[in-house]
């Protein structure tokens, strides 16, 4: 396309050529007089202008689409590169970790039990990080199950699990589910993954709230969308930190002292997006945070 653009000067060149030829007397110029009524002229002029505009429009649309395609290709490449990076990192971490675990069973019973215990704890931490990295890498590629999932059961179960965590009884944990006029509709997806997402949000809320704080889990349906919210009266986050919480390995200023892989929330986002949903966050410093996941509902009662 680029190589042919000088052709647009061709009609002008031919015209100028004729005029020069006439001026030099190489060409027997004659006068052509046209008579037309104004309405016909107006019609022809209108049609020509419309045609020119239409051509321009098509050209711009086409260019826009090319641009979009290029962006999409670029995005796909980047996603593929990122996935490869995650897989390689996962792989490179696994062998040393296997060696450390194998070495640790050989030193048990030695004298420095505290030292060994701390190595063991740290190895477990790396192990969790590696496991989360793998989940993240796999989530983007592996097919997910599409079965009707009863979110109510998932929420009740997740709350029950979190309640067994140490110290959780010192925070008040509420679960509120709609009953009237109808219960929460089901969503289509993978129950295990949805449970993992809810668990990560809850685990997060418990970890980042002080003792005595309130954590609320609620779910509701609106316009064929089921929203699950996990709200806490914790320390909240500054506005400039909020967009980063979904990034891999991001640790907010308040999170450095709290154990975690830094991959919990990115996993939530990956799971929700694989289910065709969206995640959201609202937060205020010193007041608390609300995390939400919005998922397309099925079998909503007809109006």
């Amino acid at each position, binding site marked *: 396309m680029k190589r042919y653009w000088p052709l647009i000067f061709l009609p002008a060149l031919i015209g100028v050529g004729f005029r020069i030829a006439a001026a030099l007397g190489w060409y027997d110029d004659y006068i052509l007089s046209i008579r037309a009524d104004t309405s016909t002229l107006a019609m022809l002029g209108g049609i020509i202008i419309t045609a020119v505009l239409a051509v321009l429009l098509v050209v711009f649309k086409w260019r826009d689409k090319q641009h979009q395609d290029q962006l999409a290709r670029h995005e796909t490449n980047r996603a593929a590169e990122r996935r490869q990076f995650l897989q390689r990192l996962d792989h490179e971490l696994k062998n040393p970790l296997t060696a450390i675990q194998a070495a640790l069973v050989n030193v048990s019973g030695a004298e420095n039990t505290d030292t060994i215990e701390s190595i063991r704890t740290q190895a477990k931490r790396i192990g969790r990080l590696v496991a989360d990295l793998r989940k993240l890498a796999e989530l983007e590629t592996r097919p997910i199950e599409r079965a009707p999932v009863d979110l109510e059961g998932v929420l009740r179960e997740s709350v029950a699990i979190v309640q067994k965590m140490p110290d959780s009884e010192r925070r008040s944990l509420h679960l509120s589910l709609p009953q009237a006029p109808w219960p929460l509709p089901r969503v289509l997806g993978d*129950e295990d993954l949805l449970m993992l997402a809810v668990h990560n949000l809850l685990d997060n809320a418990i970890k980042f709230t002080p003792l005595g704080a309130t954590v609320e889990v609620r779910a509701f349906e609106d316009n064929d969308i089921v929203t699950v919210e996990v709200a806490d009266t914790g320390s909240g986050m500054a506005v400039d930190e909020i967009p980063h919480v979904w990034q891999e390995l991001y640790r907010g200023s308040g999170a450095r002292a709290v154990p975690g892989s830094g991959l919990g929330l990115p996993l939530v986002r990956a799971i929700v997006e694989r289910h065709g949903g969206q995640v959201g966050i609202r937060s205020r410093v010193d007041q608390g945070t609300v995390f939400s996941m919005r998922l397309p509902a099925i079998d909503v009662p007809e109006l």
Partner: protein
Amino acid sequence: MTDKPNILLVDDEQDIRDNLASFLNRSGFRTSIAADGEGALRQMEAISPDLVVLDVLMPRIDGREVLRQLRRSDNWTPVILLTQVGEAYERAMALEEGADDYLNKPFDPQELVARIRAVLRRARPDSPPLSASWELRCADLSMDRRARRVYLGESEQSLTPKAFTLLEYLMTHPDELLDRERLLDVVWGWEYPAGTRAVDTRIAELRRVLSDDPANPVYIETVPSGGYRFIGRVETGK
């Protein structure tokens, strides 16, 4: 002490090899080591071990190729593959190529010992393991692993992919106590906060589809505070 089983441990990473070998020796095995695929094949000839623990990713001849060469020459020494990637298809491959079991890296060395013992107990000398067979039968139940289909008598039953994978693993490891963590690793390849639930729901699905009464099971038995066990007698189908 000559009745100690001979284990051949193959891994290209020296620290893994040395540490695992001394742990296995203390756990009641006699362990030989090889650092790569060629070494593994040489050792196989020299010492004919009772079981091979084989790393998949190695330079030159990788673990898969070693396994293929062994099976092609009709050598059915039990093999436990140490796999690297947790992806479902990779796990299926480990079984399809005639490995008796597999373990995802990184793993708890105790788990490796448990796997080795279970495989040795089940192994029938010089014959292919159940996991190398495309068709499995047990009473009314039959499984076509290639087509991923399950039949009760003549009628095909519909299972979710995860339930199928779980049943496949249970049937290829019959009479073996499998704890929920192990089964979770089989179905998902990762640990999971509510692991017991994820496994229990799939087991419930299997029991419903197979009409297996948990109180009086024909196929899957619940072992209190232990896990599950496939109790039926599994045969390979032709």
